[in-house]
């Protein structure tokens, strides 16, 4: 059971992703973006960072990296493929997930803990959560405003492809209004899956919430779920 963590020039959450995978007992290996084969890997993670310096648009140049053909092949084959933050941007740019990530409404690069509601738990990444569970997971991005045209958005909602949604702090004194949405994402979308449910993109960083010392362990079930899903397939 081996997970490929793809390294683009400018990726910077690759080691964190490897760490989180290994923490739950998965084998993880860094794979440079020029790789043309992903043989022996059962899943792939596109980590956060600033691939190609975010030049042109976040994720716009990474989609042309040679390894993306293999990532596409894995996605079409039904293997789990995860894009976190910049990885989500790459997956939308590559057309493996619908929609796009635009500049945050307030134009700030926002780095803070946010709350997410788990909308779907029958996926290889979320089986370890309870439906409706609210997680505390950090975000760190400047371009995280999820956008899709209204038909796409409707289709996502109808198919249950919205996996994570920004939500208010569940603790006493929740904020009023929609201030809990950190970037202006439509329908408060923080993460979506493809129709088949094996490709997932999310702006928040579950790999940064896997140990108490990091402030939250709410990201841990994300990785344990993936491990269990891979074990079932194997």
């Amino acid at each position, binding site marked *: 059971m081996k997970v490929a963590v793809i390294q683009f020039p400018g990726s910077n959450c690759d080691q964190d992703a490897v760490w989180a995978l290994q923490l739950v007992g998965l084998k993880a290996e860094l794979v440079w973006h020029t790789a043309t084969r992903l043989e022996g890997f059962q899943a792939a993670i596109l980590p956060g960072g600033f691939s190609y310096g975010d030049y042109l648009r976040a994720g*716009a140049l990474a989609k042309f990296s040679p390894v993306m053909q293999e990532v596409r092949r894995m996605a079409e084959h039904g293997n789990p493929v995860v894009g976190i933050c910049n990885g989500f941007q790459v997956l939308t740019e590559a057309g493996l997930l619908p929609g796009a990530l*635009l500049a945050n409404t307030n134009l700030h690069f926002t780095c803070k803990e946010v709350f997410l509601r788990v909308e779907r738990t029958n996926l290889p990444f979320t089986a370890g959560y309870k439906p409706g569970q609210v997680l505390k997971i950090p975000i760190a991005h400047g371009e995280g*405003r999820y956008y899709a045209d209204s038909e796409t958005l409707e289709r996502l909602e109808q198919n249950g492809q919205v996996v994570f949604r920004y939500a208010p702090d569940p603790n006493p004194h929740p904020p009023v209004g929609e201030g809990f949405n950190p970037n202006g994402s439509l329908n408060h979308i923080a993460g979506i899956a493809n129709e088949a449910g094996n490709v997932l993109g999310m702006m928040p960083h579950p790999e940064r919430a896997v140990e108490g010392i990091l402030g939250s362990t709410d990201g841990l079930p994300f990785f344990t779920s993936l491990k269990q899903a891979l074990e079932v397939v194997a």
Partner: protein
Amino acid sequence: MKYHATLLIELKDGILDPQGRAVESVLKSLQYQAENVRVGRVLEMELEAANESEARATAHSIGKALANPVMEVFVVEAIKELA
């Protein structure tokens, strides 16, 4: 022949452009009555082609590869023959 091509990539109409809004508010503070300011990108390049229409077709195909049709539109703004 060598041609100079100019490609313009813009956000689609109706998509919120916070950069444009920020620029607009600065323009207003400078007393300019500018509205609906949008920020796009200009790409310039030199292309080798047999003639102008081939250069234009290449520029168009580059625009297609680089613009994201989910939120952007592009136009080949100009093709100029280089001496």
